[in-house]
């Protein structure tokens, strides 16, 4: 690969879009995760009573929310993998064709 080729790829619309999409997804997911976790901490700090709310005979909101966050972490990580495998990798392949 020569220098002009490198320059062309870096300047190409496809590459710029790839980088932009990657960080749009990553940063959005990061902020969602931060929001969920910090929101949970603040809820625990400021409104313990709300979390004591009973759900059915034996469960309460606190347990559902706590285990829910663990589940959510799986789902959002899985969503990223799904996106990256199906969209990001394809776009990378397209761009790489041009390098060689």
């Amino acid at each position, binding site marked *: 690969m020569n220098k002009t080729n490198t320059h062309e790829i870096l300047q190409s619309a496809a590459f710029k879009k790839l980088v932009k999409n990657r960080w749009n997804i990553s940063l959005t997911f990061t902020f969602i995760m931060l929001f969920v976790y910090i929101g949970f901490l603040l809820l625990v700090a400021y409104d313990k009573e709300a979390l004591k709310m009973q759900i059915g005979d034996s469960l309460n909101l606190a347990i559902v929310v706590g285990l829910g966050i663990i589940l959510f972490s799986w789902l959002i990580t899985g969503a990223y993998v799904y996106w990256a495998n199906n969209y990001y990798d394809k776009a990378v392949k397209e761009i*790489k064709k041009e390098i060689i």
Partner: protein
Amino acid sequence: MSLNLLLQISPEVTPSTLGTANPVSIAIFFVFVAITLYITYWAAKKTKTGSEFYAAGRNISGFQNGLALAGDYMSAASFLGIAGMVATKGYDGLIYSIGFLVGWPLIMFLVAEPLRNLGKYTFADVVAFRLKQRPIRIAAAAGSLMTIAFYLIAQMVGAGSLIKTLFGLDYEIAVVVVGIVMTSYVLFGGMLATTWVQIIKAVLLLSGATFLVLLAMSKFNFSPGELFLSVKSQYGEDMLAPGGFITNPFDALSLGLALMLGTAGLPHILMRFYTVPDDKAARKSVFVATGFIGYFYILTFFIGFAALALVGKDAILSLDKGGNMAALLLAENTGGSAFLGFIASVAFATILAVVAGLTLSGASTISHDLYVHVIKHGVSDEKGEMKVAKRATIFLGVLAVALGLMFKGQNVAFMVGLAFSIAASANFPALLMSIIWKGFTTKGAVWCMITGVSLALILIVLSPTVWVDIMGNSEAIFPLKNPTIVSMTAAFVVGIIVSLLQPEKEAADLFESEKLRTYLGHGSEK
């Protein structure tokens, strides 16, 4: 099922066999050590080059690395400590464990793929990629070694006292045995042996904990509801909801940030991403690790509550006031002394694996970052580097034993928090900014890391955790128990301001060409 019936199966105080030599645990432990040393022997034959020693030849699959990451992360402290916290403080233990999990999605979104594409053996490779090598390597090594040292002290002291309680072995002997076995893994088998030790340990720990939960839940007809009702009827509904763990929201936030972002700055975790062939495998390994770690924390939550319901709070606290023996007492209560022996040896194996991972990443920092890039100015001959890496391993093994003996009987619980705090304040900000910000400069990175390390250290000494609890002063100078909210913010701010004040044109130019490697994996280490 009526409450009466539930109450009948609850607390019966039986004398525990904990602390006496348990033949089952000794046998299982010997089998574990024998198998892992055999693997080390096998791995030693495949460990000749630097890439084999530090990164297992980059031949570990995404799934295997996911298990190994989980193995590296699930320490005995989280197994016994979090189960114990749930068993004594109830729901608050879950809040703590959630903090340890939520860092993993962030590793995925922010660092895993760029790290794999840009680096070679350590995370400093990424920070130094387009900046000036020497200053960055020195500052990054300080952050890495500090994180590793505090983590290691906490593990070694925990190991000594745990093994003393579990096997009835002297503290000193336990520390020396741990030191010798883990040094042999790293010294002879490098990353390949360490990875397989982690995988075996992760499988043992996950299956042991699953079995423990199944045995315990069989007493509640496999219904979580019945377990919660039993806890509620014995200890009140407050046990199932947040208690006193979070009183000051700033404290909670600070600890939360340390756990969440510190995970993405732990050198021994970051190093594992170089063991897989490419960024796609790195991605998969984070997903697998997140799954197993999350599952494991759900198990510890049930183990804690089941111990509370079946063994009883008083019995747990009478053995250890931190509640650390809850999981083991539950094992004995549900599966007898043979099962106790099994779980005890799993806990021992867990410690061995974690300290081996730490030692390997410390050795790579010393040989790869300091020796090659600082002393030898980046001109490395493979033989010389390997020699230094092996010497560093022996040095760290001896140091770990010495620290373990030195801190015997001291309160070292705060050191894990401190390790996470330094990782979140020094390693993570520099790593993140070097990946995403074009304007980041050498000076900015160095000041960012120095600020992070020193503020985290100074503020923790002035905090209630050390200033009041350990040094015995009546009032803390710094009000928060964990400094991260201040030290991490300061590190980011200092890094940004210093970079803006004195732009580095070369670094900014290189950022563009670096993109080819970051996003396309073009030119990445194979």
